[in-house]
């Protein structure tokens, strides 16, 4: 009886978290979109980044891709601690103050953006970037969305990443 019970729970767990392959591709992008704000509690911005508890956490989106399209949807009704979440789609060349920056651009444009935000307290996030990746770079492993973390880049941007997050990372690029 018990054994059957456990088996049932295991099956249930499996059903609740089906592998990505079995889902529509936009599920993967939706997950990535939610991950953007879910990263925030595990990141320490330098003191003075937020002037008050009601200051919004600003998520900037540069460029266009499937994830960028879903960000507005994903943060709806969400908050990070006491901070409400604001999403800003950056016009080319604009320098709005950001806390998290999702780079949907590719190639040189992305590298230039990374270079532009280098040294600023901004958590840069890229998706599946082989080279010129952000501090956090989404990857898909075993049909699941995972992420790599570049501690070097984080340090350059004066950010501290929680070890809880590092534990989940598919790969951590350590500081030299």
């Amino acid at each position, binding site marked *: 009886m018990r054994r059957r019970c*456990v088996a049932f*729970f295991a099956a249930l*767990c499996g059903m609740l978290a089906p592998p990505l392959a079995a889902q529509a591709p936009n599920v993967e992008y939706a997950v990535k979109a939610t991950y953007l704000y879910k990263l925030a*509690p595990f990141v320490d911005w330098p003191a003075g980044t937020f002037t008050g508890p009601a200051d919004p956490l600003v998520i900037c989106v540069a460029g266009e891709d499937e994830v960028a399209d879903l960000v507005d949807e994903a943060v709806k009704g969400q908050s990070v601690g006491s901070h409400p979440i604001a999403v800003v789609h950056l016009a080319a060349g604009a320098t709005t103050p950001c806390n998290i920056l999702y780079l949907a651009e590719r190639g040189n444009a992305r590298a230039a953006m990374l270079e532009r935000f280098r040294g600023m307290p901004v958590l840069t996030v890229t998706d599946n970037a082989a080279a010129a990746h952000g501090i956090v770079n989404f990857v898909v492993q075993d049909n699941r969305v995972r992420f790599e973390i570049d501690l070097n880049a984080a340090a350059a941007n004066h950010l501290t990443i929680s070890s809880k*997050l590092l534990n*989940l990372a598919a790969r951590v690029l350590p500081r030299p």
Partner: protein
Amino acid sequence: MLRFDRANVMTAIAAAGVLLLLLAGAGIVMYNEVSYKEAKAQQVEAQSRVLASTVTAALAFDDRKAAREYVNALAVDPQIQAVAVYDARGHLFAAYARDGEHALPAATAVSDPRLDGDVLKVTVPVAQGRNTLGSVYLETAIDPISRRLERYAIIALLVSMASLIFVLLGLAQRRLAEANERLRRQGIDLAEANENLLAQIAQRESVEGALRQAQKMEAMGQLTGGIAHDFNNLLQVILGNLELLQRRKLVADDEANRMVASAVRGAERAATLTQRLLAFARRQPLDPRPLDVNKLVQGMSDLLHRSLGEAIRVETVLAGGIWRVAVDANQLENALLNLAVNARDAMAGTGKLTIETANVHLDEPYAQANEVRPGQYVMIAVSDSGSGMTPEVTAKAFEPFFTTKDVGKGSGLGLSQVYGFIKQSEGHAKIYSEPGDGTTVKLYLPRLAGAASGERVAVGAPALPAGREDRRILVVEDDEDVRTHAVTMLKELGYTVLEAADAESALRLFDAHPDVRLLFTDVGLPGGRNGRELADALRRRNPELAVLFTTGYARNAIVHHGRLDPGVDLITKPFTFAALANKVHAMFERCEVTAREAPQP
């Protein structure tokens, strides 16, 4: 009583101590139990909170693998039975169950640690700021009651050991108290036994002393008595011849007459001395008559004053209703005079002489210690305020020729006369004296048996107890005059009397008249048997036969250690009508009392 209480108190204290220890032990166990559970609850809550905080990222990023790793890491603790992580919607996210078939709650609400049997369960939220990401459920086993009891066993052991010590101490204390009590009682018993023994020894010593003294006096009496008797006869011859010389005027010469007169005086003084010696030896003929000692003492007052001189006051304290006694009045006067003279000598000219009379009863212990019969006596005490005597002098004072006075002043025969006379009168004499405190000599004279009111005696016709015809008396006496006299007296009194001149005819008479109740016999009888042997022979035929001996002085044949056998009595010659009447009557009365008291066959 007190000691007994103390033992009880000790027991109570021991019991209370044991109870306290048990209570304290139980208290410690209960406290430990509670605090163990509290600590365990805190521990399990802390463990679940740690998991909740580490699992946040895994929940946030839907990383079941990482979550399972955290869960498994917690399972290293062997007491943890089950761990589960639920997501925000309450779905199971990661789980561990130690025994593999553990039922986990499908979804669980947040709750403080709660105890379910030996299992402690807790559910804490996984929160990130205001957001709840899910919950963590933890089940941990607490030590089973048996394990906890094992831990408490050491406390129980200590408590029981302490209790045991308490109980043993209590018991030991009780034993000790009991042993002490026993010892104390034994000590008391021993002391009592010792006291009794000492008292018995003292009593025996005093009785033996009295007996020795009496025997010594008896021996001295025989010695002096024998000499005095012969001496008296010789003096009788001397005096008689001197008287003849004087009466017949055989001596014409004045010178010679003076010499004869002087010889007569000397012989008379010698006769007085021998009289005293005879008195001590109890061989002087006494003439006992019923008398009132108060009257006798009053009558002596002139004589006493003359003998003592002006400087010595004489005081008399005479008891009212004094009993009658039957004694020789002249000898009693002599005795009192002797005491008065001694008192005068002891007071050296001035002082006070007191003569006191009283009715007294000599009880058994006193009588035994003083060689006297217990009973009622009239006491005459003569006290002086003189020099007194040391105990050594007191002890010897009654002996003949014992004197502390210079030659010519004292003869040592004064107190011996007193002693002999009192003894011969069946009384008792005793000296109380302390050097410097004066001396008291007490004389005890037996109360006259059956004496009625004193007045009739004083008139001279004593009312004598009458005899009865059924009281048959056998009189045995070789002296015909004496026998006739006695027989006449007894017949006159109303008794039936048989008479015999010797033992043989007495025996024949007794066999012919076995109803003879009293034998009245002289001690000295002619022929084969003396009075004593006759009495023995008749008493073998009738053990209840009363025997009254009469004798001049040969007492030894009937008296043992100064005592007469029961049922045997003695009357000394010459006896008076009254003395015989009283004696015989008293003996019949006594016999009948004993016969009545004896058990019927």
